[in-house]
């Protein structure tokens, strides 16, 4: 689904990502784990062409992101770490429709998709609400709904459970899992919580912009996590 080949990236003079070659398999549940500032978000932004590698390339469905941004953006949805900054319209249902409008669907179709998603996530009662008056957990759901509505093949979740209480954490993680299991969607979960690894079947461990592990979960050893400074 997604492949990076010898990817390098830098902001100004600081090299943030070094020689990253990983593959994210279609239909897999991949967790990218690493300490704060290890470059997880920066790496994930390459998957839907928000960032372009300084060296190397990223292939989404076999096409380089440099050649076709739109392809990458359509295939890979992104639920951001700061979901407050990703709601663009003031009214919930308008916001969910934003991506669909950009896909140039007809009004009827958009309305149908939005209603479907609202029902699926059990948030029909929020449809007319102003997004700014929602709680953190509700905003998170709207952000997810906006991405889901576009029916991408793959979704990146950037630390989706920070800011949420235990109940919402469980329900979001449950939802992510069912997207993977029921709808065969490729999931990329960015996290720094070891506990989240239990849902994943593939793990990528990042440390200071270098991949120190990338394989099936069964092969992961605790020494790797120690090296990534995820616990002491």
């Amino acid at each position: 689904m997604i492949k990076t080949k010898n990817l390098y990236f830098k902001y100004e003079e600081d090299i943030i990502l070094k020689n990253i070659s990983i593959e994210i398999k279609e239909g897999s549940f991949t967790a990218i784990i690493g300490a704060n500032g290890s470059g997880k978000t920066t790496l994930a932004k390459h998957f839907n062409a928000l960032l372009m590698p300084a060296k190397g390339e990223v292939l989404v469905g076999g096409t380089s992101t440099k050649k076709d941004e739109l392809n990458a953006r359509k295939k890979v949805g992104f639920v951001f770490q700061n979901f407050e900054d990703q709601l663009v319209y003031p009214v919930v249902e308008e916001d969910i429709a934003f991506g669909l409008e950009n896909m140039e669907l007809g009004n009827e179709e958009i309305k149908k998709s939005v209603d479907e998603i609202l029902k699926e996530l059990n948030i029909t009662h929020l449809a007319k609400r102003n997004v700014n008056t929602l709680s953190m957990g509700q905003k998170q759901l709207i952000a997810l709904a906006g991405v889901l509505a576009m029916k991408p093949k793959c979704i990146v979740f950037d630390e989706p459970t920070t800011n949420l209480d235990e109940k919402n954490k469980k329900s979001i993680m449950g939802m992510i899992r069912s997207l993977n299991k029921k709808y065969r969607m490729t999931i990329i979960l960015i996290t720094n919580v070891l506990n989240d690894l239990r849902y994943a079947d593939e793990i990528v461990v990042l440390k200071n912009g270098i991949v120190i592990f990338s394989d099936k979960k069964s092969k992961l050893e605790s020494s790797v996590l120690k090296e990534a400074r995820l616990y002491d």
Partner: protein
Amino acid sequence: MIKRLTFGQYRCKDSFLHSLDARIKIIYVVVLGILSFGIKSKFEIVVFSLFMACIVLLSKMSFKELIKNLRPFYFVFIFLLLMYLIFSRDQIILGLRYIWRFLLLIIISMLLTYTTTIQELIAAIEKLSKPLKVFKIKPRNMAVMISVAVRFIPLMFIRFERTREAMASRLADFRKIRHIKLLVLNLLEKMLRSASNLSDAMHSRLYNEDIESRKFMKLKSCDYWSVAIIAILILIIY
């Protein structure tokens, strides 16, 4: 888009200009600014330019840095020059003179931000604006307003960038006016919201506009020296 936003171009260096009192420097910017508009004859312009060259040397700003800091203004200079070339070619010498004076003015204010930290500037503005109390303008409000702006503007850019990215990943196209409008409105709304959050946070930490900062500022010998130098310059020109 905006990778790194630096406010002003402060560089920590050990120079005569860096050691001057920020209040004095602000006053000089005003005085020199007025002077730069007053100079007319060739003689005055040459003297003033030489003087500016000396100040630049005193600030230890390298030629490379000078050129780099002026980069945002190149467009304006070229535009002005073109205007003169197109509309009043006979006055081109006069035009060049205007542009040169404008350049000097920019360098004057640039030197202030180059040699003074934001904190020093804010404290100095607070002290200098004390006389404004007569007009019911509170110095503390001025100072806080500036420091809030200094902290906020880069933050606004970061949030702007985040929203832009989120919109792009839902296939927004920023060649469309509609999407640009949406992005800008969104930013405005966030700005107002953060401002109101900030005001709550400030009040809950007992913000009081009547208190004056207790920062103490005292003039040093180098400050008195600089006054003498400027006085001589004014005497030469007039």
